[in-house]
């Protein structure tokens, strides 16, 4: 690999958070199980082939894909089959700020274990411990697995038989809980890579840089580390004009979450003089209907002193007023 002839560049980083409140519809079985937690304070499983009584149920056997059978109520006491003690909880992911444990609990009457949490008595907690559900109070349960706020270590022995307790029920509520909401919150810490960093940094000086294929001399914009066409490296940087031609475009009339561009706006493919690839750019200072394929445009830069070395240093492109480029000069450079 030929070393880049350019001097070393400081890393360019950007942090963005990807977040969205997803709503996952539950369907009948998951929905009724959750309704059982919320409205009845009862835990239901389903008997399925190859697994016995599955808690919590999906409506099918995960062993062979067959459809599920009858609803079976299980107790809210059970035995721990796995323990993971979290020493430093992760904010906005884990349910507690203090050390806690994830557990798998096989409830009495169930043949599978459900994943849950234990908050207290962590020193006493081990595989084999007896635990009991701690419910959220009436009015606070929402129809989620966290309607059980946690399990607590009881030390009580496994009951020999399922004791008769409250009024027996045949099924969970008929009306399912419709959705489970997941508020996804993912911070990302990106790096631009040196080629993109150099390109952005140069914008501060009102320079547009492309990278040149070491084999064909074609100028790639924005700079790429290699030319896909030749498969050769493209490590040499060259200046490209800030004037060019609109090769094609569209008029965007639809807003996007998280964007603040005023609609309608023109998004155009612009072939800058000296570059062999076109870039997408905003066209302004003219009415959208005045934009044409072949229209000559020039960059409008942020004023001196305001440019930061990022993509906003070029505010947009505007018509230069020159005669349109002939079709053959741009029709194959879309």
């Amino acid at each position, binding site marked *: 690999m030929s070393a880049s002839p350019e001097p070393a560049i400081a890393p360019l980083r950007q942090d963005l958070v*990807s977040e969205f409140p*997803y709503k996952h519809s539950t369907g009948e079985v998951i929905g009724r199980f959750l309704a059982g937690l919320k409205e009845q304070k009862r835990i239901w499983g389903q008997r399925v082939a190859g697994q016995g009584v599955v808690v919590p149920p999906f409506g099918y056997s995960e062993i062979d*894909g067959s459809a599920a059978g009858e609803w079976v109520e299980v107790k809210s006491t059970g035995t721990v089959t796995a323990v993971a003690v979290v020493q430093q909880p992760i904010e906005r992911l884990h349910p507690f700020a203090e050390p806690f444990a994830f557990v798998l609990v096989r409830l009495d009457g169930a043949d599978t274990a459900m994943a849950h949490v234990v908050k207290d008595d962590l020193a006493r907690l081990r595989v084999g411990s007896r635990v009991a559900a701690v419910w959220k109070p009436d009015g606070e349960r929402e129809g989620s697995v966290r309607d059980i706020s946690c399990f607590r270590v009881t030390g009580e022995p496994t009951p020999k038989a399922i004791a008769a307790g409250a009024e027996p029920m045949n099924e969970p509520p008929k009306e399912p809980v419709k959705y489970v909401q997941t508020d996804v919150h993912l911070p990302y810490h990106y790096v631009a890579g040196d080629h993109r960093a150099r390109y952005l940094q140069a914008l501060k000086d009102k320079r547009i840089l492309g990278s040149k294929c070491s084999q064909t001399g074609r100028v790639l914009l924005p700079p790429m580390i290699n030319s896909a066409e030749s498969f050769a490296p493209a490590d040499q940087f060259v200046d490209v004009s800030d004037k060019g031609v609109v090769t094609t475009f*569209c008029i965007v009339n639809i807003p996007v979450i998280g964007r603040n561009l005023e609609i309608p706006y023109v998004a155009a493919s612009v072939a800058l003089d000296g570059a062999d690839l076109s870039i997408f750019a905003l066209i302004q200072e003219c009415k959208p209907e005045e934009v044409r394929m072949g229209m000559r445009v020039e960059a409008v830069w942020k004023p001196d002193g305001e440019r930061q070395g990022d993509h906003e240093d070029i505010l947009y492109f505007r018509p230069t007023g020159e005669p349109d480029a002939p079709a053959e000069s741009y029709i194959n450079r879309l």
Partner: protein
Amino acid sequence: MKRPVAVVGVGQTQHSSRRADVSIAGLVREAVDRALLDAGLEHKDIDAIVIGKAPDQLEGVMQPEQYLAGALGAHLKPLIRVHTAGSVGASTALSAVTHVASGLFDRVLTVAFEKQSEGNAMWALSPNLPFTAPLVAGAGGYFAPYCRAYIAKTGCPPHIGPLIAVNARANAARNPYAHLREPMTLEDVMNSPYLWEPIRYLETCPSSDGACAMVVASGDVAKKGPRKPAWVKSGYSYAEAMWVPGRDQVSPRAGRVCAKAVYDKAGIRDPWNEIQVAEIYVPFAWFEAMWLENLGFCDVGQGWKIIDRGEQKFGAHLPINPSGGVLASNPIGASGMLRLGEAALQVMGRAGEHQVPDVKNALGHAYGGGAQYFAMWVVSNEL
């Protein structure tokens, strides 16, 4: 391909804007149950599972095939998950064909789905990317400039896109599984607002929840019935780099190369006359004209004339998308498999109300990325 492969069962869901009645597994199982029933098989008969879908940010579940393994009857079976952008449903089906062609698997279940109502498709597909100006507003915002270029290059009149859109709806009326089925008039479409001019609202695919599943099997299994199979004569998936100076995004090279490979292998020299029906991936109406050219059904610049003459309508010379296509239903991950599956249904004689008569060969096609990924097959009623 080392040995013959056939489609022995096809299933799909009721596609709609929001399948709030089912969980993700419920949606997928609806299609899988139907495919297995169609094939006269059970989960225990399936040797491997090949599943595909588009970006996981659409549902907010990463690699959902892991959660779905139990639901798919995949426990202790081989499974792979494919992702090739919009073409994924098709490349997934082709990967299943490879599994069978290898000689190592006799019956492979293949599934593709999207439950994009759980998130927001536009947001998921056009996130703010670092170090990039946030200009592209959804897939339409990317493709609209190339539709404009097609119109400019060919002198295609403005009613062609609307004609395609109207026809897609008319076709969807014959497909009970389709999402958008209400008929439209040319006036309806031409009066609808531009989303990304030149693409209008009513020329744009919907955002749908849906799934498609198929069982592909060896020739020996296929011959044992119960259904007349659809023989996979050929299938290829190609991709091309993005940043190639002068890359043709109106008629991409990867599409032309892929189509040629598929036709050559299937022994087809004159697609316009040797293929009786084609299900092709048209998310924005103008692509129907563009793909007719890219797929070699006509010469460059002539695709829109086929539309103008109505030769691609149901009942005409070469019906395109009798199912209504992507314009009628677009669960992104599933759409490619729906194209291939609908082509198979046509050959199997099981397309119900939208059955084209006397189908010998059918083409199924999908594309994705910045018009970079192409996956297609030709299926036939004989080996």
